[in-house]
């Protein structure tokens, strides 16, 4: 069965690149324009993976992760941060919030596909 990915980022060009890369590898990608949009979409569908930016209006990445982990349906769903942030402090916050991994932008499509395959197959 085709794996589904929720890609959350307020940058339209970034979402386009993520979607292009993962769709080429056979994943079904749904885009969300910010954390709030991502949360609303996650409530209507259980995705196999959530890939989220950190700095977004309305609801940032860390807040989105905490909100998702509070949902019974998203206790075990892998959540990866894809962000310009690279500090150890932020990574620790991400891990504490419930993130399963941290990818620093810019991403290489091949490496992104490899890590997504590793996480959800």
């Amino acid at each position, binding site marked *: 069965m085709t794996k589904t990915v929720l890609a959350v980022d307020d940058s339209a060009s*970034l979402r386009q690149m993520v979607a292009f890369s993962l769709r080429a590898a056979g994943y079904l990608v749904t885009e969300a324009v910010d954390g709030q949009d991502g949360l609303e979409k996650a409530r209507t569908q259980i995705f196999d993976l959530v890939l989220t930016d950190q700095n977004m209006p309305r609801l940032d990445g860390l807040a989105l992760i905490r909100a998702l982990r509070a949902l019974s349906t998203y206790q075990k769903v892998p959540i990866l941060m894809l*962000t310009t942030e690279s500090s150890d402090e932020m990574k620790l916050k991400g891990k504490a919030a419930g993130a399963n991994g941290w990818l620093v932008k*810019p991403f290489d*499509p091949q490496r992104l596909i490899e*890590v997504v395959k590793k996480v959800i197959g």
Partner: protein
Amino acid sequence: MSAPQLLPAEFASQLHQLLAAFGRQGSGHLTEVDADLRQTSYLLAEAVTKLGNSFIGIHAATMAQSDLIAMMKDGAPVPPSLRAMIDRLQLDAVECVNEAITALQFQDMTNQLIGRIVGHVASLHQVLQDAGAAGALLSHNPDNAQALLVLASVNQVLQEKGTILDQVPYKAVTQTHMESGDIELF
């Protein structure tokens, strides 16, 4: 010629505070603006170079494939060397596309940097406007007491706005190259 009059100590102190605050805040904002503009410039330059190289690589692959199609249409035998070259170019094209996708992410980062720059410029503009508005309260021939009051008022505004640097979006973008970032699985 009469000897120059000394400024009252309190007046001099307020004036000193004012000039120091202007220097500090102005310099603080403009230093950040300078750093962010340089970083934006580096990222844009690398992105454009990568995109240019990607375009050339993809173009070469496309042209070779066009030659192959033309030969096949003419019924001409396709030499193994051409097939091998096209296979190689196709692999190169995939790499070029990946490089282009990495480079195209420059907009996300430069947008954040530009947002910070705009924030700093707006804050500096506000500081100057506030100082100008306070200064406008000075009449044409102020006595020392009035001038002192105005100076103290301007200094208070500058002190309150002194933490404005904290209100500008903090720096989430530290990249100076358009290379793939680290990946860590927890």
